[in-house]
């Protein structure tokens, strides 16, 4: 694989913007879906840009991820393919979620291409909103030293921060590059064609960048395994779970912002679940002396987990949007990791690999049949 190194003193965002501008000017794409600073200044939104004058104000790699990109793309193509050739500028976890959603028929990938950027992680959205000037500066530094202790915990344990195994066309590398350099890497034949249409010919060696990625991968895997080990004792068993979620206010925000949790109406907000006789609640209260309201709080989280864990990309959007700062993403990631290993499935890795839940056969997984878990 070869790449093309771009030297620019203006920083990563400016350099990427130039590439996006060329794509629009040369008519390679009709529109770009890319994060852009909100008019209020302290946050970012996804903007689908057709008119090139808006490219100037976009922020390809913003320091936060307030809206998971897959949700933005879903809004565009849920009802069918778009006739526009759209290039989506997203983080790896957003792209992986988009691919899962396409398997779940919530996104139509026809005419859609992706360009990913090496991602150092993101700040907690709320932290950034309250302190954006300071954190903007800090993010600039992080992009050079590639290390920080104030990023979201889900980012610190993320092992898919670059383009490894992403079935997409284009990538921008930054890890291990010099301060004023980025590397453009085509990941497919189509990617090469896109780049040559804007006069970028890729002939440079990329091994240094690749080595840096592998080192980082190793470091992050260690972080992750350590975090999982610590978490295991905190969430095993119903008492621990009760404690873990004890200040949940049932706003279901984790579900609303989860890119994978796509049901229009959640079971836990549906008639079956909401319209129960008063007597039902009274009897349940009498059985235990008392019940917490709203009811089914843990069941909601467990239900959600069993529905989406196979496709969970560990993006941390759930945790970022939790008004009570419950580390939801940690426990979901932990469970997802175990489950995905069991089925040898990596969400977002292969576009045509079906989600195991769609291919499950009843003679599978006999070894888990004993509900008591004895072997």
């Amino acid at each position, binding site marked *: 694989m070869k790449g093309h190194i771009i030297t620019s003193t203006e920083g990563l965002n400016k350099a990427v913007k130039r590439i996006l501008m060329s794509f629009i000017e040369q008519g390679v794409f009709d529109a770009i879906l890319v994060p852009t600073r909100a008019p209020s200044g302290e*946050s970012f939104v996804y903007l*689908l840009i057709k*008119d090139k*004058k808006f490219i100037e104000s976009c922020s390809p790699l913003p320091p936060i991820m307030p809206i998971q990109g897959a949700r933005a793309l879903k809004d565009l193509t849920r*009802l069918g393919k778009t006739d*526009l050739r759209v290039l989506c500028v997203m983080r790896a976890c957003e792209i992986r979620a988009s691919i899962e959603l396409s398997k779940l028929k919530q996104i139509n990938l026809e005419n859609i291409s992706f360009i990913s950027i090496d991602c150092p992680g993101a700040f907690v*959205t709320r932290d950034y909103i309250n302190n954006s000037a300071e954190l903007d500066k800090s993010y600039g530094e992080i992009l050079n030293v590639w290390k920080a202790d104030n990023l979201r915990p889900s980012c610190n344990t993320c092992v898919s921060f670059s383009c490894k195994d992403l079935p997409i066309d284009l990538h921008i590398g930054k890890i291990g590059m010099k301060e004023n350099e980025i590397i453009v890497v085509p990941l497919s034949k189509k990617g090469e064609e896109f780049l040559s249409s804007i006069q970028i010919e890729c002939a440079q060696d990329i091994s240094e960048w690749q080595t840096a990625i592998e080192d980082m991968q190793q470091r992050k895997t260690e972080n992750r395994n350590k975090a999982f080990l610590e978490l295991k004792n905190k969430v095993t068993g119903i008492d621990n779970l009760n404690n873990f979620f004890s200040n949940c206010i049932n*706003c279901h*925000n984790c579900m609303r912002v989860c890119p994978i949790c796509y049901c229009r109406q959640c079971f836990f907000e549906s008639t079956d679940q909401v319209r129960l006789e008063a007597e039902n609640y*009274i009897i349940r209260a009498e059985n235990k002396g008392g019940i917490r309201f709203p009811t089914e709080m843990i069941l909601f989280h467990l239900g959600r987990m069993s529905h989406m864990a196979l496709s969970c990309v560990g993006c941390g959007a759930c945790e970022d949007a939790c008004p009570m700062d419950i580390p939801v993403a940690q426990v979901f990631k932990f469970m997802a990791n175990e489950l995905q290993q069991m089925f040898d499935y990596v969400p977002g890795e292969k576009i045509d690999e079906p989600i195991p839940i769609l291919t499950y056969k009843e003679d599978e997984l006999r070894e888990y049949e004993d509900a008591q878990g004895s072997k």
Partner: protein
Amino acid sequence: MKSFKILKAPDEALKEILLSLFELNKIKGVFALSRINSDNYGYALITDKTLIRDIAPTIPLMPANAAKSISRLTMVESLKSPIAVVLRPCELRALFELVKLEQARLDNMIFISFTCGGVFPTRIMKDGLHDKLEKYWENIKTGENLEDLRESCRICEHFVPDNADIILNLVGENNISHETTVLLKSEKGEKLLTDKINKFVEIDLESEKLRSCINKRTEVKSKIYGAFETEKFGVDGLTRFFGRCINCHACSKACPVCYCKLCFFESAENEYNPSTLETMLNNRGALRLPVDTIFYHLGRLIHVGITCVGCGMCSDACPTDIPVSRIFSKAGERVQQLFEYVPGRNIDEKIPIATFQDTELTEVEH
């Protein structure tokens, strides 16, 4: 109004009342904010009287507007046996609105409420509420307005409950740490406790102290509303105000009077064909995705403005700290004034939207 004193702090006094109602067989259960573990509080429906020890109704927190839970409890049928429901005034008002909207039923409920000193943002649970409590209770004595309370509480003029059967007076009481004044507001309330208590004192809940406290809050409200110039907003102002909205709709989920099971903005009705979006994109040059962020908030505002009780749950649940309730309570108040309607004041007063005639309000037609 008949009143009596219990020589205990409010929560303890309330436990005493509830236990005696249990013993007199006048209630089968209690619904109240309760201690879940050392740092966390949530609502509970309690039928075992020994668990009454865990209730903490006056702890200055409102993790959810309890009217929503009472709606869940009574949506399908009325309660068959009486339970005591302890609610803050804004929760009680929201519940009355939900009853008018046919989302809850009041039968077999005994309402206990209190003059409310406000609550802290719920997130305080994780940073330690207990350090704040001493100062909170000190301030309640004078009715001073603590800066770190929810904004909606700091500007709330409706902290004296209108419709409870039994009211504890907290605001302005100097001996709150060891003495609680209990008022029997309704005939139902009187009947419940007359056998139990033999000495009553007639008092009025409209004291000088409460009035001055209301005035203080009105002052804060005028200041906050005055500086918040929604009149000059226009679309640009709205775009800035809701600029960091992440479309999570938590404000709607947390709102007690936003009761639709499936919001229009989450329904198939509100999905766009790619070609429609393409036309929008062509017209504007760029399009924010997901679409309709402002439209959602305005739609919600139109739906709930008239019934908004100003509880502040929307701001509390917002993960990006948008002061949603400021715009909703300010706009809500204006609409309510227009119709001379106070949500939750009177159960028999219909919501104006249900009685609107097409000959009305011709003066605002242009």
